[in-house]
Structures are given as C-alpha cells and as structure tokens.
C-alpha cells in the first residue's frame, strides 16, 4: 500500500514502484531514498488524485486535528467588502489571494476564514511588530492563547503566528501541523527563500493577503502556485472616505541651500564620472555589487564611494528638509504624525534634532512596544521611522505622514500611505507629504514611486 509521509518539508511516497501519470505529475523519483517525493504544498492535489484513482493509501503526512471548539468570543459583524472577500475565497475552494488596501481589515478577514474552517492555522508575517499585533488580535477574537514563532519565541499552538524567517527555519518540522496557511503581506512570499515556507507546508487551505499585489511575472506565478490566484481585489479608491479615511497627497519641493547645492553637485559629479568610467549601468542586474567591486579595484574608487554617500545624504536629509519637517510639524500641531526616511541615519538625525522617538530595527522590543503604545495613546505626537513601519503595523491615530526620503518602490509608498489611512474617531482627512530635494536625483526617484493610482495628488 502507498504510504504518504511528511519528511523534512517534503512528501515521501513509499510502498510503490510506479505511479499513474495523474499522480506522478506531482512527484519525482528520489534515488536517495528509493521512494517518490513531492513538494509538501502538493499534498491536497496529491491526496485528491489518489482518491480519484481509487488507490488505497496510508496518510501519515497530515498531523493536524479539526478544531470544532474554535469559536469567536463575541459576534463579529463583517463589513460588506470583508464578506465579499470571504465569499470569493470560499468559492475558490479556500485557496487564493485577497487584495485589500491597508486599513480595510485584512486581519478580520483572516479571523473570519479561521472561524469558517475551524482547523489549525499558521499565519506568516514579515515583521516582529506584526507578529505581536496578529497574536493579540487572535487572542482577542477567539479567547485562546496564540502560538508565536519568531523574535526569540518558539511556542507552537493550533493557531500560530510566525515571521517568514522563523517559518523558513522551522517548516521542515511543523509543515504538516496546519490545515490553513495565511500569508500576510504575501507579496513577500515569492522571494526565493520565503517561497519555501509555503512549499514546505502541506496546508490544503491557503489565504494570501496583500495591499500591493503588483509583482514581476515570475513572482506572480510563484504566488499563484503557492497560495492560489487572486480571488478578490478591492482598491484604495473604492474604500476611501468610507472604510478608509479620505486623504490628500502633497509633494513639497525643497530647494537645497547654496552651500549644500554646491556640495551636492561636486559629489554627484565625482560619483557619476566614476560610473561612466567603470561602465556601471544601474538598470542592469547586480549593478550595485559591480559598483562596489569597481570601487575597490579602480583608481578613484574610494573617492567615488564616498561621493555617492555624500550626495545621497544631502539629497535625503539636507538642512532644508529638516527646516521643512519643522514647518510641517508646526502646521499639524496636535495631530499624530509619522515621519518616514529611507535610512536609519536620516531617522536618527531627525530624532536627535527634534527630540523625537525613532523606531528602527535597532529599537529593542520593549522600547518599540512602548513607542507604539504611547503614540497610539497620543502621548507621543510624532514618530520617526526608517522602514519598520512601512507595512502592516496598526496606528490608526496617525493622520499625517511625512516622507522625507524613500526608494523608487511603488509598493513602499503605497504601504506608507496605508499607515495613515485607517479610520479613527475624529479623523477627517489624512495628509501625506512627500519632501523632494529640487534638482537632485530624488526627483526621478519620486516620479518612479508615484506610478500608482492611489499615490496621485487629488
């Protein structure tokens, strides 16, 4: 008889010398063990194919129970778009990606999915902040202790939240213990490492959640293979002013001071001349490492590297930008403001200058929690961050965002906008400022990241 085992994140199919084509298409012969092997994520189609072919098999792979006792502690009244999304996902056999804007209640949708299936679930999240946020939401809605995997904790329970990084390390041991796999911010999932989290899990039911589904073609194919196709896609504009706050985006061009402008041109010239000499083209793959190698090997390389950082620092956090930040903070005194920067240096420069809390990956867990709590309570009116607040973290009180600097990534900027879009009592309109140093490379970077419907000035 065929025996199906979960083995280190794979399915081992033993007790058989050959398999019918409908089943064999999910497997490969493994000479190392003299068996057939399949990706764990093909557990559901494999089992279905075996059943359809009426082939007897022993299933030792699946190691999760049903959870009939899993129930909400109170009544959950879903918003219409959440019901619509859940229905679409159910119609897709509980396997698909739901695209909802930040603040539209993706976590609640996941709670509804867990309540519907009543089976063990593993939720993947990209950051520690999201890990704790998801755990407390699950505990609040189900009244159970939620498992945590990540940030130094390894407590695996029937409903467990894990960072992608920790899941990757542990999936070979726990990949058969969950029926439902939820990938939050699932645009992270197709990266070569993260995709293994989903590939090494047998979970037949899968829910991907994202506000920014735009991905390169090959990554989209991976996401569809691992989580299912997009089954529901609701944009920011559909919900703005209803479920989400109304918002306005304003670009502020900042003129560099005479001294800074001269210094910028000087460093920029050294840097770009070197790029030409070294034939580095940043449109090509691996250009950054080619640049670093050229800096180490070619004459003038060290100066070019120094010039690169110097011109970038002036454009990103020159004194004119600091003055502008001060002006915006004054204009919005009494409101909750998040200041975003591209790098930690700029974040700490702002924090030191204006005596502000700065949240970066250097911030230790206890202080990070304290910053967010005091900000939510309104006792800290301003929070400065580089990238850790880009995604997911729930700070509905924030009504003003100031983007001091950032990358050209559309995703990053839509996510940053999302931070200030959540509805909160008394919040009428969210305001997002983008500071751009005039006549610097920031202008083209800004143009690139604004290529999204949600990010146009209205």
């Amino acid at each position, binding site marked *: 008889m065929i025996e199906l*085992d*979960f*083995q*280190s*994140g*794979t399915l*081992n199919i033993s007790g058989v010398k050959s398999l019918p084509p409908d089943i064999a298409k999910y497997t*490969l012969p*493994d*000479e*190392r*063990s003299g068996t057939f*092997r399949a*990706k764990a994520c093909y557990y559901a189609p494999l089992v279905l194919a075996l059943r359809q072919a009426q082939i007897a098999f022993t299933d*030792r792979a699946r190691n999760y129970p049903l959870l009939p006792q899993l129930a909400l502690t109170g009544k959950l009244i879903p918003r219409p778009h959440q019901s619509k999304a859940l229905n679409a996902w159910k119609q897709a056999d509980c396997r698909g990606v739901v695209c909802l804007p930040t603040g539209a209640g993706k976590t609640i949708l996941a709670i509804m999915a867990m309540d519907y299936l009543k089976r063990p679930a593993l939720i993947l999240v990209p950051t520690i902040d999201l890990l704790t946020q998801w755990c407390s939401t699950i505990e609040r809605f189900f009244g159970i202790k939620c498992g945590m995997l990540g940030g130094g904790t390894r407590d695996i329970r029937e409903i467990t939240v894990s960072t992608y990084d920790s899941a*990757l390390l542990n999936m*070979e*041991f726990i990949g058969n213990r969950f029926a439902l796999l939820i990938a939050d911010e699932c645009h992270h999932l197709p990266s*070569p*490492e993260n995709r*293994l989290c989903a*590939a*090494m899990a047998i979970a037949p039911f899968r829910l991907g959640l994202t506000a920014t589904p735009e991905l390169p073609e090959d990554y989209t194919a991976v996401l569809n293979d691992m989580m299912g196709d997009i089954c529901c896609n609701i944009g920011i504009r559909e919900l703005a002013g209803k479920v989400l706050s109304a918002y306005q985006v304003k670009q502020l061009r900042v003129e560099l001071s005479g001294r800074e402008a001269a210094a910028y041109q000087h460093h920029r010239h050294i840097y770009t001349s070197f790029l030409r000499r070294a034939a580095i083209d940043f449109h090509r793959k*691996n250009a950054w*490492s080619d640049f*670093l*190698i050229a800096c*180490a090997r070619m004459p003038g390389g*060290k100066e070019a590297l120094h010039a690169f950082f110097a011109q970038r620092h002036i454009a990103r956090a020159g004194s004119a930008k*600091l003055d502008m930040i*001060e002006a915006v*903070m*004054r*204009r919005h*005194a*009494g409101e909750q403001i998040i200041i975003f920067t591209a790098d930690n240096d700029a974040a*700490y420069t702002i*924090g*030191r*200058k*204006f*005596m*502000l*809390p*700065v949240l970066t990956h*250097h911030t*230790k867990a*206890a*202080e990070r929690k*304290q910053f967010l709590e*005091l900000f939510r309570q309104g*006792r*800290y*009116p*301003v929070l400065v961050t580089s990238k850790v607040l880009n995604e997911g973290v729930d700070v509905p009180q924030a009504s003003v965002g100031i983007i001091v600097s950032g990358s050209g990534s559309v995703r990053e900027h839509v996510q940053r906008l999302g931070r200030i879009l959540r509805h909160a009592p008394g919040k009428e309109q969210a305001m997002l400022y983008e500071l751009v140093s005039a006549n610097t490379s920031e202008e083209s970077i800004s143009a690139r990241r604004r290529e999204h419907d949600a990010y146009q000035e209205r």
Partner: protein
Amino acid sequence: MLRSDQLLYRINHPHIKPGFVDPRAPFLLDIAGELLNIYSSAPDSGMSRQELEEITASIIRSSPAVRIAAGLNKLLTDRCEFAAAVEADYPLLRQQIFLKSAGVLASGNFSAETLRDSAGVPPDMDIYGDLPDFEKISGFRPITPPALLDRYNLALAQGLLLYADRLTVQIPEPENSMLRKLLKAIKFFRLFARFTMLKKHLLQIEISGPCSIFGPSAKYAMQLANFFPAIVLLPKWKLSAVLKIKGRMLTCNLSHKDHLVSHYRTLASYIPEEIKLFHRTFAKKQNEWEIVGNTPFIDAGNQELIFPDLSFAGKTDASLIHLELFHRWHASGLRDRIALLAGQPELPLMLGIDRALVKDEADFEQLFEACPHIRSRCWLFRDFPGVSSTLKALEKVRKNLHRSQ
C-alpha cells in the same frame, strides 16, 4: 562566514576556485597580526564598535591586500561579543525627554532648540547614545595569525558553497570512525546522503537537502556550508559542487590537496552533558554491561549504514547490542528502521524512541502492528533515555537474540 563581496575566487569557465591564500605568507601574517592586536586589546580598552570599525578600516585601507584584510576583519568581528553601553538607562531617559517634548510639539510653537531646552537635554548629550555603534566589545575568542589565515581559506570555500544546492564527495579507503562522524554530521545538519561504492575502496556520497530534487534552492546552502568543515576532517577527500553565480553554472572542485584546516576538530571530542551523565550512571548502576568506546557502524545492506548512538558489550558473554535513538525530527527514519528490523530481526539493534514522536501509548503500539516480534526492541524516552529502561531493554534483546540463535 564571509560576505559575498569579500569572497575571492578565480573563474576559468566552467570551473571556479576559491582564491586561497598562503597561510605562511609573511605579509599576510603581518596583516592578520596587526588586526589581531587590535581585537585582542579591544575588550580591555573598552573600545566601542564604531571605534573598532574606524581603527580597523584604516588598517584595511592601507593594507597591500584590501579584500583579504576585509575578510580577515570580518572573521575577527564574528569572534567578538558586544555589550550595550549601559552607563545610563537610555530607554527611561528617552521616555522622560519625549514626554516633555511632546507637550511643546503639541503647542505648535517650537524650534529644535526650544525642544531640546524644554526637555532638559544638555547640548553635548546624544539621546541615542546606546545604538549598536556605541556598543562596547566585551569579549573576543582568541586565535593565532596562522590559524586565522587557515580559517580564512576555509571561509572562502564555505562562502562559495553558499551558492551550491548539493555536494558530491569521493572518499578513498573510507575509514569507519571518520565515516561515522561524517554521517553524524550529515544527520546533524539535516541533510540527505546517497552512497555509491564507485570502486572497491572509493565511496561516493552525494549530499543534498530533502527539497533539493525539486530544483536548486538556497535553503540548504548554509547547512551545506556548515557541513563542509566535517569533510575537511577526512584524511583524503575530493569534493565537487555546481554553483550558480551571477547566472552562470560553475563547478567548484576541492580536495585534501588544498590543505584546508577544519575548525571542527575539537567538536569531534565534544560529548554532550546528558551523554556524559548517562555513561557515569550506567557504570555506577550495574556490572553486566559496558559501553563500547568507538561504536562501529552496522552495514544493513542496500546502502543502509546504521550508525548507532551507543553500543553495549556484555562483560560475561560476547553480546554486542547497539542502540539507536530516534528524536522528534526522525519520524520517517523511525518507520524505515522498524521495517528494516522487522525484515532483519537478527540485527543486534534496539531503538529508543522520543515520546515527542508518538502521540500516546496506542500510537506507539500501532508502530508494531505488522511486526509484533520486534516490539520488545523498542521503548519510549523523554529527551534522553534513562539507564534503567536501557538496561531492561538490553536484557530483553539479549534473551531474544540468544533464543533465535
């Protein structure tokens, strides 16, 4: 480990070779020595991470071999321990400052100066003085300059293996005890191995991760790279790995002739505390059995080599019984072993099974449904088996084996 930009290699398509250095080259020993002097004195001098980086950066920049110096520096940084600069309770201090500045910010009537003044922060105080840059070096694991260069060569090879998804190793005249350690290392790093005897005295082992058959992935690269020093421990070996670097498929061939030195040497003699305790209690508690020092492996046929965790020799008879332990991560291996033992009951082998592998007693009993005759060979333990239960099982197995002979 070295960062990718610190790797040195030569490509002669389709081959790639790490740019090994001569560990006896005086100028390299000088660089290593100069860096080591700084690192050795850093913990006592209370140097911060930033200060250390500044000082070593100047040595690296002025060195005749910048990339090698940068690589050596990385390996030395990995040997450091850092402690937070704890002269002040920065989080508490910051909370007091931010709560004060919050009031001023809310008024809308402020400047950078008034914010600092109202929060009572002296002009020379850095409110983020506890960032990693300011961490102090609290410890450094010493190493000699030649050993550092040996470690560097090994790290160059390991760095390239981070681009591999499998290794093929050929071992001429494989010697049991070394092979056993190698196999244990394979098990430890949760890798899969496929054994083939190419010739009478030439063993080939293909090592990869369970998922590797589905295509190249970096999932096991770190495990393979960490496993590599176990190969270097062998007296004679040849390794071949296909690497994907910048879209090109390249073959990396290494062997004992590269004179690499493994830093796992001491690990071979490391005995975990629970095993030491087991040995002591076992000797104290009874006089019938003794634990065999160098456990031999059992060739069960079909390329199946069993490397027991412990072997016991009867003091009064010629009994030799092996014990193999199955922990929580050996679920599938356990079933295979039970099937093998059911087919070859004459094997002098007993199995200790971690309770984490079976749900309950019924689940345990179910394992032997098809082969009740080997039920007495197996028993359950939690974390590590106790001496009494091991002795009980030993006696049962001895009786069974005698009966069948």
